[in-house]
């Protein structure tokens, strides 16, 4: 499957594992429950967070994860934006933060501003078209994960 990472389209080398069937080879993305239940030692692990997971539950475990995926059950649920911001700004998480679920081009600009750098565009949507969303706005008023200085200090 193709995803967008660091503003480019790449072939994804991660697999989502929901706990059913055999554990796939390679890099796997699992839920918080699965990560706590299963012995995954020796594997590259991505953690998938749901909007109501508490970051306080995992803040000391972040070094275990090569990737954190944040799920958007619907794009109208904006909790994931604050999660990513806190992961980046407060907890210092430097590796991949990936948006999964109901993700399409119209959210990408805000998502990348909040610290997401990878995106699984939902099925049926044009991933090449989505890539253009990063250029929707050339000016940003606020500071965020992608900008340390407010606009008024830059103009």
């Amino acid at each position, binding site marked *: 499957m193709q995803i967008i990472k660091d503003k480019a389209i790449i072939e994804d080398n991660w697999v989502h594992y929901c706990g059913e069937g055999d554990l796939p080879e390679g890099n796997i993305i699992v839920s918080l429950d699965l990560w706590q239940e299963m012995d995954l030692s020796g594997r590259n692990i991505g953690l998938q967070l749901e909007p109501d997971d508490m970051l306080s539950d995992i803040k000391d475990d972040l070094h275990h994860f090569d990737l954190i995926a944040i799920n958007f059950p619907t794009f109208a649920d904006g909790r994931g934006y604050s999660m990513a911001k806190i992961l980046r*700004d407060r907890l210092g998480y430097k590796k991949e933060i990936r948006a999964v679920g109901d993700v399409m081009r119209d959210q990408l600009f805000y998502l990348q501003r909040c610290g997401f750098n990878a995106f699984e565009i939902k099925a049926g949507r044009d991933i090449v078209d989505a890539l253009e969303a990063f250029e929707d706005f050339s000016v940003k008023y606020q500071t965020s994960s992608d900008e340390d200085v407010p606009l008024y200090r830059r103009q």
Partner: protein
Amino acid sequence: MYQYNENDQRIVDERVVQFRGQVKRRLAGELKEDEFRILRLQNGLYLQIQAYMLRVAVPYGLLSSRQLRMLAHIATKYDRGYGHMTTRQNIQFNWPKLEDVPDILDDLASVQMHAIQTSGNCIRNISADQFAGVAADEVVDPRPYAEIMRQWSTFHPEFAYLPRKFKFAFTGAAQDRAAILFHDIGYRAVKNNAGEVGFKIYVGGGMGRTPMIGKLVNNFVPEKDLLVYTEAIMRVYNQFGRRDNKYKARIKILVHELKLPKFIELVETEFAALRQEGAVPLDAAEIDRVTAHFTDPDYVDLPDKSEAFNQHLQDDKDFSLWVKQNILAHKKPGYAIVNLSLKKPGVPPGDITDEQMLSVADMADDYSFGEIRSTHEQNLVFADVRKDDLYQLWQALKDIGFAEPNIGTLQDMICCPGLDFCTLANARSIPIADKITTCFDDMDYLYDLGELKLKMSGCINACGHHHVGHIGILGVNKKGQELYQITLGGSAGDDASIGKIIGPGFDQDEIIPALKNILSTYTRLREEGEGFLAAYRRLGMSPFKEQLYANN
């Protein structure tokens, strides 16, 4: 007023391009309606009963004559020749075609206007005291802070998909005219003993089906912390506000369920963490830059008394009535604040035609430095008129029907669009408002009643602010019949209170007799000089209720 720089303009222009693309994808079927709905709402575009409705932002109620002319052009070209002033100081058009909306946005952008975040579950357009900068009771001019907040909240990446809509209001005067206690966040600009500007911050006010008065969360947030403190509140809400039930999703419910001390603790903890991470405080230089856009216009030094004006007052009774009712004292000697009444029988409250817009724009140029204010009570204001000019201006306003001497009276009612336009409404409100203004047209009687805030909503969502009317009317639907419930005792001001339902509702033929009954109880029992609200607070509901339902 604030003038866009290159960056401000670019953001608005790029939004037009983005929205044009979204409309194109919708029309091509690449966006589903349930996806597009959320996106278009963030740009003020609703789908109503018969057509789309576009709500255009009027930040803190400030318009230039040039902008108003463009709104007139839009009303003529894309709509049916009129617009509607809303209770949050915006203007909406009821009949645009979807495919025209990007062009309308282009036209708006050409005069530094937009429809960004006038709807949707995001930080909405910011409202403020309509007399900011000219009121005699002002401590701090809130407009620069409202503009700074407008910029900060525009496309804020973290807070675009909140649990529910989110409204800010600002005042900096002794008297609150912006209903800040009925907003998600109300900001009252104050000065401390050292003369430094800060804000009393109230959170969790609102109307809707669970009306609540905002609660004081911080007594003095220094101006440099305005944005970071707000960010802390927004982040607490974005994470913990309820998303399981639309009717329990506003921040007022979160504050209520957590209890105020716990909510404050979460906000303060978040604020401290943000600061520790190096959140950027607001620069004094930036406050100065924006404040420079809101300096006084070129007032002339005038004597406070105008002989010509006084002569007209003596000679013309109608003029003196208008002055008494619609004119307010100005901070600058020789000047006055003029309220334009958009309320009169036969016209939906707040409606304004394209021709009226053009006339108002011309008058603004001739008499008030080219600026117009909109009010949350759905009227307009010329903030800086020379007393010498009042008589001439009055005649011009009479010609376009905006000189009804009814500001603050029962005729000056707030009213939502109701079932004639809105998909949420349970009952019509505009025809009822018309019945009321038509029936209560004896101005001597209305003046005798004194200040009386009558507010009507066509459903429990309370867009017509019925909860805070001295008398409120709420349209409901009982078994297919439109009924109107009456509430008494609400107030949106510093003495904020939420009206109480007096009893069973009335149908559209009974509502006028019921209002007459309530008003007769008031005039019978009031003390010398006692207004309706004060009388109700002294007397309580009982005498009104007993009289109203006496025959049942």
